[in-house]
């Protein structure tokens, strides 16, 4: 046993070292951030930029409309997310099945995945928004855009699920069968729960991405959406500040999701 005064001495030295490290970190952070801010504030174009991007009065004037429009973003996000979670699972299960009868379906699933992972989301949304009506189908732009997002994200999420399913050892399925479960029960109670836990972080990542991509609906003329509202204000009044408002709203949703991700990851490691 180390003598008590030696221990106290070591503890004190450690505290001193920690304090010094924290102080250096704080000072350097302030210096760098402060330096950047100073750089921006003293640049010659700053007053104009401030008026065009950080116009407080205009922000206050436009924010309520943008916030109201953001409600559409949230609704689209929730509906698409639920659809993607379900369809993505279906797609993943189809691709990982081994029964010979499902071969044509498996092939189709593989083609689908390649197609919708390979084309930019904005393109799919655009094609849905302008192409489908051209075929004579009369559906609201919001729905077309939502379908476009669903098509793309189902492909991404299916791949994440697949990775998750692969990450569960085959012996788990065997143990489930050995206990008397049938294949469906084994998947539902043993394999799938583990698969989802294993890929929770990438899944959540895709959802943060989806939330942001709802903004793409703007290009097919969906009004009443936050980014679009902000764009309309900006080009009508030549003032970009509303876009900042829209950005803050997006952050308000994505940042908590990212923190949730951290919590989940920490719990996994335990």
């Amino acid at each position, binding site marked *: 046993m180390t003598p008590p005064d030696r221990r106290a001495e070591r503890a004190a030295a450690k505290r001193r070292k920690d304090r010094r490290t924290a102080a250096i970190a704080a000072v350097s952070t302030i210096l760098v951030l402060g330096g950047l801010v100073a750089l921006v504030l003293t640049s010659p174009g700053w007053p104009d930029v401030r008026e065009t991007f950080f116009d407080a009065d205009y922000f206050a004037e436009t924010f309520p409309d943008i916030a109201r429009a953001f409600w559409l973003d949230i609704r689209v996000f929730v509906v698409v997310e639920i659809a993607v979670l379900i369809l993505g699972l279906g797609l993943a299960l189809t691709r990982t099945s081994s029964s010979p009868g499902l071969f044509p379906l498996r092939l189709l699933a593989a083609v689908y995945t390649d197609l919708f992972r390979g084309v930019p989301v904005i393109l799919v949304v655009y094609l849905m928004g302008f192409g489908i009506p051209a075929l004579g189908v009369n559906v609201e732009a919001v729905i077309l855009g939502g379908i476009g997002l669903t098509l793309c994200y189902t492909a991404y999420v299916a791949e994440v699920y697949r990775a998750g399913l692969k990450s569960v050892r085959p*012996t788990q399925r065997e143990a489930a069968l*050995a206990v*008397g*479960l049938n294949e469906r*029960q084994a998947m539902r109670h043993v394999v799938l*729960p583990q698969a989802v836990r294993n890929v929770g972080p990438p899944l959540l990542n895709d959802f943060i991405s989806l939330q942001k991509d709802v903004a793409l609906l703007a290009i097919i003329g969906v009004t009443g959406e936050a980014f679009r509202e902000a764009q309309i204000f900006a080009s009508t009044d030549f003032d970009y500040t509303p876009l900042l408002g829209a950005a803050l709203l997006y952050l308000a949703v994505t940042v908590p999701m990212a923190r949730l991700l951290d919590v989940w990851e920490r719990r996994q490691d335990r």
Partner: protein
Amino acid sequence: MSEPVIEIKGVTKSFGEMEVLKGIDLTVHEHEAVALIGASGSGKSTLLRCIDLLEEIDDGDIFLDGEVITDPSVDPVGVRRRLGVVFQAYNLFPHLRVLDNVTLGITRAHGVDRAKAEGQAREILTRFGLGGREDEKPSRLSGGQQQRVAIARAFATRPRAMLLDEVTSALDPELVGEVLSAVRDLKSEGVTMVIATHEMGFAREVADTVGYLHEGRLVEIGPPEQVLEEPQRPETQRFLRRLLEARRV
């Protein structure tokens, strides 16, 4: 001896080019404990997996309580519900509590209601010395404890027979004893068992019959005093001698 529970007739199994089982004949009677010994790769695990229909046999038949189970028309799920398997690597469900590991089979496969199932599960766990640990996740338990949970899980469904595949081979030596103790307990209950094992002393103690598997064939089979102490076949003799040299016996 009593009625046969498991009958294996002329079973062969190959993995690609490799022949693992080259024609096995074996009968396991009610309450009998059959120990299978043999070198790694001799086919012990494969045979057990074939009995539980986790592998498809190439030729021959396997019967459970007189009914053929290896026919393609037979539903494997029903067969597996009547057998219990304990794996070398325990294979517990890591996302479920110990208690739920044991109840999953009883509730989902046998339709017992949750409350009753939990009661049964607690009883069995206590019996195997795991009382008080039901709410923990498997990762918190030692290897020996996890294997005992695995035994409880297989036993909870009151199978017609239990298949134990090298259940102590993955354990640290000091943990082996508690697991063997649990198996001894099963034996005293009269559970029909097929035990693949390296533990010769244990085989001698618990088994009614010992079979030596040599390169896919059941080369010698008989009571433990014979097979383990006075083996008739040269292959068996060579195997045991090697083991003696490795001070396993």
